[in-house]
């Protein structure tokens, strides 16, 4: 990335005042990146940003409360930061936000599917248009757009909405188009038994690792989650799909109007369950009822965290 040097320079300048700066660096193979915690000057050189920078680093912020933290954000990640600020789960003065113009990140599941078997990855070259992966002695050339995450195709905020330091040139539209939930609409058109059957089938393979919860930047109950709580005893620990679905419903409800659809829940799922769709459904309803979109304005209050005597679009008194 052309502004990577600029980013490193600004981190170098800010680091003496900060406990840590979180970015990304290379991981166990050339096809993966991993969150990188920069504490010392010599850690800066390892920083790499690009289409492999998939992780939403805002997830780490509530756990670092009280520390001076720098964070590198994509546009979508910055919305989680805004949401955390809105809910006063982090303090604005404690964080330094480094933004950059994101051009999309990959979906590893799509790469795996395109390659059939990835095998031993020897190299991975990314350009604006293509990805060339050499694995198990064979070169595979893929169109970048074919392996970008779904959220990137409909991205409306490629540039960080909030930042202290922005490197590179802003690329996004000033006024983004409203979210469309096209894929969701197709699913919603299925019959109720079909939709229910879909979830029973998908969630059957859930291993209850709760990576969906742990990777979520807005799942902040942490050690007091309904998933394991005995008092109250919401969920059984039995391996049945009813409890797995129940957890996902609780998760989606907790996130209604707060979720910024970063997709970390789904990306983190080791068995690829499309759990993001449940949150998108909630957000679509929130959009229609409250004309609200999460994580855009730090001064806003999420609709389900506020109270109005008269809601414009809830007509209970007309019954």
């Amino acid at each position: 990335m052309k502004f990577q040097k600029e980013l490193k320079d600004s981190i170098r300048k800010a680091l003496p005042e900060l406990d840590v700066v979180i970015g990304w660096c290379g991981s166990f193979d050339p096809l993966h990146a991993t969150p990188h915690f920069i504490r010392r000057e010599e850690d800066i050189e390892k920083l790499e940003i690009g289409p492999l920078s998939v992780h939403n680093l805002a997830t780490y912020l509530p756990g670092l409360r009280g520390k001076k933290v720098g964070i590198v954000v994509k546009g979508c990640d910055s919305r989680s930061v805004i949401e955390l600020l809105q809910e006063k789960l982090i303090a604005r003065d404690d964080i330094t936000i480094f933004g950059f113009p994101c051009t999309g990140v990959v979906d590893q599941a799509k790469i795996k599917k395109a390659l059939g078997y990835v095998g031993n990855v020897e190299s991975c070259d990314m350009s604006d248009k293509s990805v060339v992966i050499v694995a198990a002695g064979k070169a595979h050339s893929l169109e970048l757009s074919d392996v970008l995450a779904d959220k990137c195709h409909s991205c409306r905020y490629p540039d960080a909405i909030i930042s202290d330091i922005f490197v590179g040139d802003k690329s996004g539209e000033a006024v983004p188009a409203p979210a469309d939930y096209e894929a969701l609409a197709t699913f919603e058109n299925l019959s109720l038994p079909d939709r229910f059957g879909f979830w029973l089938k998908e969630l059957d393979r859930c291993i209850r690792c709760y990576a969906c919860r742990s990777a979520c930047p807005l799942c902040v109950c942490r050690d007091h989650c309904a998933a394991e709580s005995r008092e109250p005893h919401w969920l059984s620990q039995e391996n049945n799909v009813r409890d797995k679905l129940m957890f996902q419903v609780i998760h989606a409800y907790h996130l209604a109007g707060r979720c910024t659809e970063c997709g970390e829940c789904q990306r983190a799922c080791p068995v690829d369950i499309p759990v993001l769709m449940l949150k998108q459904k909630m957000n679509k309803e929130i959009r229609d009822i409250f004309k609200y979109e999460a994580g855009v304005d730090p001064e806003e209050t999420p609709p389900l965290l506020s109270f109005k005597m008269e809601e414009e679009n809830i007509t209970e008194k007309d019954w």
Partner: protein
Amino acid sequence: MALVKYLKSTDLKSWLAELAQENRVFAPRYEGEAVIFAPFDPEQEIFIKYAATAPPKKTVFPQSERLVDFMYSKDPEDLSRIKIEAQEVLPQGTAVVFGGRPCDVRGFTMFDRVYMAEEATDIYYKARRDNTSFITLACDATENTCFCHWVNSSPSDPTGSDVLAIPVEGGFLLKAVSDRGETLLTSQLLSAGENRVEEGERVCKEVADSLSQAPDLANSPKKLLEVFDNIEFWQDVSAKCLSCGTCTYLCPTCYCFNITDETQGMKGSRIRSWDNCMSALFTMEASGHNPRPTKAHRLKNRVGHKFSYYPDLHDGVISCCGCGRCIKSCPAGVDIREIVLKAIAFEPTVVEG
């Protein structure tokens, strides 16, 4: 020489269908973008192109199982009294697991030392372990995350298996590893395998040779104890950990569990379910005290258990089979190899004076 047979790939499903007449048969299946072990279904494809996302751990150690059923009833003599009856629920039947990898199946041998110890045997585990046979698929390729050869194993290690299936031209060379394995190789679908033994050996050797040099982990038990009190070390290596349970639940050797009571009306069950040392609740005491209060403490225990405490108790055997799932499936890319090597290489800074 042990019994060897040949199975044509095209006969695989028919063979498993035969085995399914007498046993519950599990095989890997592609679901979503994941590969999981599921009951054999002749209508579904068996997916063996690469190792499954989740190992077949659940076939012997289910995600949850009933240990004891209990029932309350009012005492007819005195209605203020509740009578309780409790009854054990033992697993029944036999199973055959096809398509686990050598690392997956070897994982059970780490369970065995704990669950089938002389002084206290877990009869639930033992009932399944004794009645489950493993037809293990030797690996014909490796991934960046594979490190079975670091922990005294190899891509064709038969330890813990009953039959080792080696992919050869057009099918599999099936080698009986145990007596039970020999009894699995009686089907008319199988033909003589002696003429393919050489090819099988070549496949195994090629894969083994493709692995890079393994580091020496002999020092890991000692070195991990040396860094035990170095909280900065553990904060550093655990910084990106999200405290989810992916690594433990996908691990073929992670054997920790929880016991909880679940009731419905006047009856209920005491169940055992997978538990996860990366969760704060795992060690949280009723008083609110937690001996492992942060993810740094918890990751230290996970790595320490596998590479120090377990070997200390079990003849130096490292309780990791090198399958690499904890690395590959970690949403944050925590790499256990990196942590162990860092601990081994760690030299405390000597403070002069």
